[in-house]
């Protein structure tokens, strides 16, 4: 019996950039139909997510229920065995040059203009290189200076040993595929 549960090298499966673009259409009919499709996909994704929620990986389960929507991407970093490289906010594209067997981190922030600001970090232990998919044609131009987290999908690729993939759609239209085996998540308020 094959132990593979899902296909790893695909973009977003449920909350696709194309569907998101259709929701933002000027045409109410197109937008309404896309919203219905989105809600159907949401139900389908919940079913997929239930496979993960019963697993004993507490950090992954926590990530599945943690809302990072609209958080601003502050930076990303990658560390291989003998080398550390840090990429800043305006240089996120550099982080696509990763190899497997490294650690990959993403930092997010929200609410700095108010008194409720907080910082979050996701640190992944990779089992394959991180892939960045370019934005599709016609994507809403949100400006490259500020990149925000839009939607994400967690996927279980192999059950034993567990291999996951985290697909994240960002506001610049890129989709980041992060294959990971384990995860550390930190979250703290900024005073």
């Amino acid at each position, binding site marked *: *019996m094959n*132990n593979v*549960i899902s296909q790893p090298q695909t973009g977003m499966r449920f909350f696709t950039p194309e569907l*998101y673009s259709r*929701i*933002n259409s000027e045409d*109410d009919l197109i*937008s*309404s139909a*896309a*919203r*219905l499709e*989105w*809600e*159907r996909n*949401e*139900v389908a*994704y*919940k*079913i997929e*997510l*239930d*496979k993960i*929620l019963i697993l004993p990986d507490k950090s992954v389960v926590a990530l*599945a*229920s*943690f*809302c*990072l*929507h*609209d958080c*601003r991407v502050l930076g990303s970093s990658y560390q291989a065995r003998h080398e550390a490289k840090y990429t800043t906010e305006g240089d996120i594209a550099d982080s696509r040059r990763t190899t497997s067997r490294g650690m990959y981190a993403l930092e997010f922030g929200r*609410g700095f*203009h*108010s008194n409720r600001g907080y910082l979050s970090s996701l640190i992944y232990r990779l089992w394959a290189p991180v892939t960045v998919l370019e934005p599709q044609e016609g994507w*809403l131009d*949100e*400006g490259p200076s*500020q990149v*925000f987290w*839009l*939607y994400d999908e967690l996927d279980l690729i192999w*059950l*034993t040993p567990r291999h996951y993939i985290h697909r994240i759609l960002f*506001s610049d239209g890129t989709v980041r595929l992060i294959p990971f085996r384990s995860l550390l998540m930190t979250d703290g308020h900024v005073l």
Partner: protein
Amino acid sequence: MDSKRRYANYIWGAVRWIDLAWAHLLPPVRLIILSGVNRWGEIAPCLDGRLEATMGEGKGDSEASPPVAPPPVPPVVASPPVVHLATLGPNGWVHRGEMLTIAQATDIRRSGQDIVVCGPNEAANRSMARAIETTANGTVVEDPPHINAGTHAMAHFHPRRRTPAGHSFFETTRRGPFS
């Protein structure tokens, strides 16, 4: 050593059978359960029977059913959308507050608070929410409900740069605010 290896093989086989059952047999069962009850154990009013109806659209193709006369369509009364102050509750709920004028709603959005546009016409609600958000904060984007915000999260507009904070929610035929 052999017995240990044999037991390990038994356990490995069991894990694989559970894996197979989980991946192929349980999803249809969970689909039935999830269509009425969400994973937090609540009845999901956002589905409200409509999603089940849409998911079962093709079911009746093979069954011959006698033609039934369509029910009389009630006359449509055009009622304009109404704007309310909104507050966010647990599990994505949007609580509807006091009624606002368009000017008040625009000021409230500029100050970073939430509003919700309600009414029976989804397209009119969307147009008004977009107009208020655009007047208040310039270029906007529409976000569909996001799963981690909760089962009752609503579609909304917000500024492209996410400042000021807050949202212009709007009622759809499937998701509405908590009165």
